[in-house]
């Protein structure tokens, strides 16, 4: 037994990022356990401190990406734990499940208020796999347990999706700023609505949205694929590219953490803070 916080990584039929996600959680000083979608009792008995819905193609994206996973019984538990304030992160297909669950933006709990539609931007459509830059919204940096250590520098993280374009009903346009967590930008932090800075046509360049309280974050990019510095390609521009290149022939490259590690360190830091406050 350890006193480390336990992060539950949920595996749906078709998830394919659960092992690397669990691995980076452990590398960040927390415990991680993978629970299958039908292990509701085991998940409930383990009383996890946080939940991650990893990437992949749950239920083969049948009907609509994330739509079937969102209806699974295990999501009842995640839904209630999220409402109680526990941190929940959805990455890529996990984000699609959270959107289809009505957990984000969560203006009305459980109501479906957004969609992750098929990529569509001038000159591009279909599946995209590439590196993008992200920046965190100021309010999100303050309130989200997943973003508290991200800082203001743009961070490179890869995307790999066909349905990653955040859209909302027109009537909700005036309250989208409440749920903005991560936006696409260039290596200097400048946002434009054009490809490749905004890779998929997402509304307001959104790469990730959160609920009002900030504990639930749905993001399309894969931070677990940018956890180690060696995962960053040497040609990446900006400060992270410079750091990566300075380690090119240095044995320290093997153990150096990359920008994706900041998401998981943020969560570990959040739990440390709670633990200190409890003492």
């Amino acid at each position, binding site marked *: 037994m350890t006193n480390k916080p336990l992060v539950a990584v949920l595996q749906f039929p078709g998830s394919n990022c659960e092992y690397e996600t669990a691995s980076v959680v452990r590398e960040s000083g927390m415990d991680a356990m993978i629970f299958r979608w039908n292990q509701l009792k085991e998940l409930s008995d383990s009383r996890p401190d946080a939940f991650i819905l990893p990437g992949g193609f749950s*239920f*083969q994206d*049948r*009907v*609509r990406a994330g*739509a*079937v996973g*969102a*209806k699974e019984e295990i*999501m009842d538990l995640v*839904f209630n734990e999220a409402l109680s304030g526990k941190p929940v992160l959805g990455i890529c297909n996990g984000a699609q499940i959270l959107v*289809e*669950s*009505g957990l984000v933006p969560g203006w009305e709990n*459980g*109501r*479906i*208020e*957004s*969609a992750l*539609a*098929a*990529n*569509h931007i001038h000159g591009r*459509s*279909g599946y995209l796999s590439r590196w993008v830059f992200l920046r965190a919204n100021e309010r999100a940096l303050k309130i989200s347990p997943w973003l508290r250590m991200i800082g203001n520098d743009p961070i490179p993280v890869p995307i790999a999706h066909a349905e990653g*374009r955040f*859209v*909302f*009903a027109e009537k909700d346009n005036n309250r989208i700023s409440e749920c903005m967590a991560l936006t696409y930008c260039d290596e200097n932090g400048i946002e434009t609505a054009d490809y490749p800075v905004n890779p998929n*046509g997402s509304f307001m360049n959104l790469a990730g949205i959160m609920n009002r309280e900030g504990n639930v974050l749905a993001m399309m990019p894969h931070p677990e694929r940018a956890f180690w510095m060696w995962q960053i390609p040497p040609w990446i521009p900006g400060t992270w590219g410079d750091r990566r290149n300075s380690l090119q022939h240095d044995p320290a490259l093997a153990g150096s953490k990359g920008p994706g590690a900041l998401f998981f360190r943020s969560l570990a830091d959040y739990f440390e803070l709670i633990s200190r406050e409890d003492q």
Partner: protein
Amino acid sequence: MTEVSIEVRLKAPDPAAMTALSTLKRINPDTCPGRLERYDYWRFIRPLDGKRTVEEIVLHFHDIVNPNKQSWSFSGGSGILLSGDEELVWAEVLVTDKVDSISENWTDILRRNKYEIEKVMYSVLWRLGYSSGTSMAEARERTLALTITSYRDHGLLANPVSQNINLLDQA
């Protein structure tokens, strides 16, 4: 002819339809249909020679109909794809992405290949079969409720934020 539509279905049981039906049975057991069928639904707008042009396109482009695993028919035609189950009351709903790359890309492809056609529109057609005691009005009402995903436990087949939903007039 201003519009020619075709319906395309898998020759084998459609896994998406099976998954959708089992999910609907779980979340909406009282209103769930007894059968659920899924079709790719293509509308060809203003093809020069009507059905003849569309048939030529379908036979030429195996991305629209892969003859190894799919069958097709003109919509509203002889109904060769219909289950023929007279005991069920059928309601049909079309789900179309509000912004649709598939339709845009196919319109471009066909024009580049010199087919005289105004545009192509892609949708998914869901056909829901209810028990014989169900009235058509009730079947249509249930179908709409099961289609529109308004809450996590209400509806499945379409997300109204990003998709248009059209209940068809008759099954």
